[in-house]
């Protein structure tokens, strides 16, 4: 290993000794250390950090990192039936191309003039989400769907000052925990689900709603894939108590399913990742948030608004607006804190929606409807396997119960793994009422033969006797 003094780092152009000396001379000091003598000795690091590296050569770095990540298996190699909040939708090549552009990838908070293109792309994101949701006001995407739900709920609280939030019983435990963490001054009440449909039990809702209710929050489709048909009624009930109606949607369903704007949603939120963003082991999440065009909503958004302006030449420009709401401008006086979120995913979603257009959104939704229903059908035909919530229509996801097979989801999934299949998400821990159930997900990337192969594999596994055996090899 060469001595440190001789190392010139490709990422640090001025690590060349001669250049450093020139600069030090210009400044008028002898050693770099003199420039940070303001840091007291007792606050200094003793000795040298004990970390791995350096791996200065790109060849060796690539070898090292790829050696590690090659231990992973991807959903290209395995057939995936997992969903539950992150989805293996198709990512068009053009989405990858645009979000890989050095310009978008390495821009940050530049504004109206220097990052005109970025600002326009973000305005297009909010505009296209607006069209998809039929909502006029859209905030820049936030961390994830859970955070979008959190902010929606807090917005409701800020609007009406109330501290109770009603959420459905059928909901992802992680989302509940996110709400508990972020809205910890609020009281969360769960509304029961109809056992046969999975949809909201309106009687229970009526029982629990009151003048203390800040908002009714539902998901459509819900966490277990059931399409909620009672949106209009829920809206009426919520509004009759002066509560806001917050709906979380799956945006990729909106080519075929109705937007909550039509059945009375006041604030719409949702998880963005489906719209052209790779899963990335969860890296691809983003939060949609939108509302009606009323001051009480607008002024309670914590997010940046890139508003359109026209100058005298008739050119469009885009500028952050009504900044007094945000914590960048008003610190603790802001409505909520606002940090850097997922701008690149917002741009990607704009590209996705532009590529698909109304027809593409319709087709992808239709494709998922047919194929997920087909999967329900073929799995449901397996002896001992039961599809739950049959009385509801479902979108993309559905619950498969294995109670009558005598096998656990865990066992079955372990066996499926050997056939290069990621089986459905195991619900047995979080939804104990449902016994040995799994949440299966079918997207437009799932092929008909994948579904048939899954069914065959499940059948084989259920017939086999020794499927309990230890770990996956």
């Amino acid at each position, binding site marked *: 290993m060469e001595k440190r003094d001789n190392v010139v780092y490709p990422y640090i152009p001025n690590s060349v000794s001669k250049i450093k000396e020139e600069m030090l001379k210009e400044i008028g000091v002898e050693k770099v250390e003199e420039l940070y003598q303001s840091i007291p000795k007792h606050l200094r690091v003793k000795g040298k950090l004990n970390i791995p590296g350096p791996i200065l050569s790109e060849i060796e770095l690539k070898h090292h990192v790829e050696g590690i990540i090659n231990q992973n298996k991807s959903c290209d190699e395995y057939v995936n039936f997992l969903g539950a909040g992150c989805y293996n939708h198709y990512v068009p090549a053009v989405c990858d191309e645009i979000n890989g552009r050095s310009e978008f990838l390495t821009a940050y908070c530049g504004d109206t003039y220097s990052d005109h293109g970025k600002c326009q792309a973000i305005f297009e994101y909010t505009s296209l989400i607006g069209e998809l949701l039929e909502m006029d006001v859209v905030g820049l995407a936030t961390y994830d769907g859970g955070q979008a739900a959190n902010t929606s709920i807090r917005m409701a609280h800020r609007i009406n000052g109330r501290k109770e939030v009603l959420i459905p019983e059928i909901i992802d435990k992680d989302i509940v925990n996110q709400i508990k963490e972020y809205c910890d001054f609020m009281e969360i009440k769960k509304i029961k689900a109809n056992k046969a449909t999975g949809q909201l039990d309106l009687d229970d809702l009526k029982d629990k709603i009151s003048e203390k209710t800040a908002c009714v929050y539902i998901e459509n489709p819900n966490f277990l894939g059931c399409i909620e048909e009672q949106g209009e009624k829920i809206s009426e009930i919520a509004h009759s108590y002066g509560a806001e109606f917050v709906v979380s949607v799956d945006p990729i369903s909106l080519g075929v399913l109705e937007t909550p704007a039509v059945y009375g949603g006041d604030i719409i939120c949702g998880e963005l990742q489906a719209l052209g963003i790779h899963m*990335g082991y969860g890296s691809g999440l983003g939060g949609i948030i939108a509302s009606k065009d009323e001051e009480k909503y607008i002024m309670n958004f914590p997010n940046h608004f890139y508003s359109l302006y026209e100058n005298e030449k008739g050119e469009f420009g885009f500028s952050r607006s009504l900044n007094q709401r945000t914590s960048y401008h008003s610190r603790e006086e802001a409505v909520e804190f606002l940090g850097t979120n997922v701008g690149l995913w917002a741009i990607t979603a704009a590209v996705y929606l532009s590529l698909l257009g109304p027809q593409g959104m319709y087709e992808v939704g239709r494709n998922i409807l047919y194929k997920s229903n087909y999967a329900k059908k073929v799995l449901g035909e397996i002896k001992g396997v039961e599809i739950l919530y049959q009385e509801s229509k479902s979108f993309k996801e559905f619950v498969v119960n294995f109670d009558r097979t005598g096998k656990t989801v865990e066992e079955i999934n372990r066996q499926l793994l050997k056939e290069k299949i990621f089986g459905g998400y195991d619900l047995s821990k979080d939804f104990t009422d449902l016994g040995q159930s799994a949440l299966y997900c079918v997207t437009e990337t799932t092929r008909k033969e994948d579904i048939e192969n899954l069914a065959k594999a499940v059948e084989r596994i259920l017939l086999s006797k020794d499927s309990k055996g230890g770990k996956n090899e």
Partner: protein
Amino acid sequence: WQEPIILELSEEGQRGIVFPDVEEELKDLFGEVDNLIPSNMKRKKKPDLPELGQQQVLRHYLRLSQETLGQDLTIDIGLGTCTMKYSPKIHEQFVRNPKIAKMHPLQDIDTAQGILKIMYDFEQIMKEISGMDAFSFQPGGGGMAIYSNASIIKKYHEDRGEGDQRTEVITTVLSHPLNAAAPKTKGFKVINLMPTESGYPDIEDVKAAVSEKTAGFFITNPEDTGIFNPLVKEFIDIVHQAGGLCVYDMADYNGLFGIARAKEAGIDLCHFNLHKAFSSPHGSMGPCCGAQGVTKELEKYLPYPRVDFDGEKYYLNYDRPHSIGKLRKFYGVVAVVLRAYAWTITMGADGLKEVAETSILNNNYLMHRLLKEAKGISVPWGDGGHRLEQVRYSFEKLREDTGVTIDDIDRRVVDYGLQTFFQSHHPMLIPQPFTPEPNESYSKRELDEYADIFVKISEEAYENPEIVKTAPHNGPISKIEDEIIVDPKDLIVTWRVYKRKKGLK
């Protein structure tokens, strides 16, 4: 380009991508797709999305990209506090590898050993860099990490039965606004300390601020002034004595690698922005990762799950009874963790220190040149001595002399191919502020070019102020006279609102 809004480019019937047709067998099986949708949930009006051919979409967004000054394209020194540094291109190959990009977060851990190992190993690295005992990479950015730190503080005091008592958080007015906003969002009352002429608060002010109500103290060191607060340990001791916890905002850690850590200052919690000092790209404002570090005592409060290693296998540990719970679904933006890991092992311990030292050198070199050559610029506070990785300058003198404001200059730099610069967070204590951060990614030639532009603009301001005031002349668009709205009714964030206001179809 004068590129229209994409909805203006729509041509009815065109399309950018086709999805697989549904097999006839399935159509036969289920009939019309409407049979699969509850009748009242069938979308009645198709969304008014644009209709364009694939290349037309591509061309539009490529053109927009060219109107965006990414750090790769320009000498992006102006965005102080953001550490706009080089994000190595080889890292993009790693994160775009299907072995990362196409992983489902719930897939069996046996099939995710690679990424779990990276997360585990990087935690060990972060522990050594900071001296802290445990890290979570779940926060989706610096803001969420600060929030998460506030959450832990709250839980900590609650567990000790002081939840109702300790309701105040102290920070400095020069700390990042989120150090006030995030604790406030968590429910704390926020006390802001003002700096003295030294650039940091007086020790007496700290003493006056603490009380039995003090839950925590959120401090950045150095703040955006680049002045290191040498009394930080004393501050921390005062807060500790009062029963509060202390948090370092190390979002902009770039000038301290291998030189100063949280541990030596006696810090309880801290966070780093991996998209800043650790070189993950900013991505037009995210996604990013706020790496949250805590002491052994506070480890149990970190969000679930944690990545652990049982001697044979890496696994996700959900057994976290004391955890504050969940901030973001799954495990954070692991792609950012992977990039930060790659960058850190590329540099090694010596390289990290070189990063810090070169950043400090670059910053002081730029300051030296600007103060010497650019008329009308000054550096308030401090003793006129050296700064660490950034400096907050003031163009107040220039404004007084010429009437040219920092906003004018900020538009004018675009004509010189530079990214708009960062002035200051609010409140702007320093008038006409300007906060560049010339980190280690820039060469001497680039620093000189950057300084030359400011010297030139200063000359212009004194000789021909109009050219600066009416800038930009060479940007993607000309100056917008009145870009600040105060009435929410004037807000236009969607094309549908624009059309409605204009009475268009």
